[in-house]
């Protein structure tokens, strides 16, 4: 089995760097375009995300997450921080809450659909409709919690609870699957 790309980068194989950019560049760019409103911000952010990725490649643990999830995690952290610091609100005007699909829509097509995403979908489907809607607005649309509370007409504390419980549910699901995979591998 091939060594994960990020581990190759961390081990000093620079050939893997170009491959990494080609494999995950579209994902990082799409996340940047979604989370940041300005294309020039998104361009700078993509550069910063990859620098962060090179620095953190050695921390990647294939037993904990897929490479796609790891890259998305690093990217989201940088992008959320950048957006918050620039105090720009996500483009909410073009999105009507009632139009947001509750069921998981067709996922990002060109990205490898990894196990985590599938398990996350399974976990999300177990949430109540309002919890699901809040989680989607907070995670996928990037709305601040206060904005979600205002737009849905529910208390801020309820929004925070939905987000937190939703993430706990997904995390439990991912951990359970990871443990099961580990046991399978031990056999």
């Amino acid at each position, binding site marked *: 089995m091939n060594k994960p790309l990020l581990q190759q980068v961390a081990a000093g194989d620079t050939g893997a760097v170009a491959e990494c950019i080609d494999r995950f560049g579209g994902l990082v760019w799409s996340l940047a375009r979604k989370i940041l409103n300005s294309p020039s911000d998104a361009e700078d952010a993509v550069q910063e995300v990859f620098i962060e990725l090179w620095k953190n490649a050695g921390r990647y643990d294939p037993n904990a*997450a897929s490479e796609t999830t790891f890259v998305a995690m690093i990217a989201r952290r940088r992008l*959320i921080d950048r957006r918050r*610091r620039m105090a720009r609100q996500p483009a909410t005007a073009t999105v009507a809450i009632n139009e947001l699909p509750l069921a998981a829509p067709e996922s990002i097509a060109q990205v490898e659909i990894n196990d985590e995403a599938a398990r996350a979908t399974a976990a999300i489907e177990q949430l109540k409709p309002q919890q699901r809607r809040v989680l989607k607005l907070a995670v996928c649309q990037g709305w601040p*919690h206060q904005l979600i509370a205002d737009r849905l007409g529910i208390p801020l504390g309820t929004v925070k609870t939905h987000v937190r419980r939703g993430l706990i549910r997904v*995390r439990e699901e991912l951990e359970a699957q990871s443990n099961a995979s580990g046991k399978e591998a031990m056999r």
Partner: protein
Amino acid sequence: MNANHAQQDDRLLQLLADRATEGLDFESGAELTRLLVEYPQFDATHFEAAAAAVDLAMSSPPVEPLPRFLRDRVLMDAGRAFTQLDFDQPDETTPMRLAPPKRASAAPLRLLAAACIALAVFGGWWLVGDRTPRSLAVGDQYQRFLRDADDVQHVSWVGKEQGFERVSGEVIWSDTRQSGFMRLVGLPQNDPRVAQYQLWIVDPERDKHPVDGGVFDVTDAGEIIVAIDAKLEVAHPTVFAITLEQPGGVVVSDGPLIVVGTSAS
């Protein structure tokens, strides 16, 4: 578990969930850092992987390909990042009196070799810096930089905020090398678990936003020398500024500029 611990756990989980979705302000970030030190059983990425998986699962927009020009920039940055990290500068912007420098390992050598190949293949890589081996301490690198660089710009520091009035020293910077050093005298020590200093480089020719020059710590009184770790290419910096930020630094600072150096040119 007593009630106080349960309350702290609860607060920590809330901060982690907030960070994974909407980010944290400076105070909340510092509070999270403190709680993570106090409760090491919690992973700092507790919810971030879950949020990333949710995003991948539920986001509907299709992936746009990375524009070619941006791919080239990322590749060029990678060349610079690996070169700087492994050869001409320490891993972080490290004060002179910290841990002794490490020797270059085989892996970075392979990186450099591959970087050179990539330069030939992709045509866009620009390996800058003098690739001074790691066996040189930061102070020696500073002296060597002063001696060898042809276009060294000297910019004096001025303390701007209360408590920093007595800070002095200078920045030395080379546009052609895209690197430089800070010499700082009298910058107060910081607790890196709570806050870190961060350098910003203003280049009006490049962008209205300053470029992140890297985070660093002051662990000792007196004079320190710190290698500058510019995250992006800068054409001609006119102002250097230091802020105090949450651990790890920030992407865009809204903190006060505590020490500033303005170029005379």
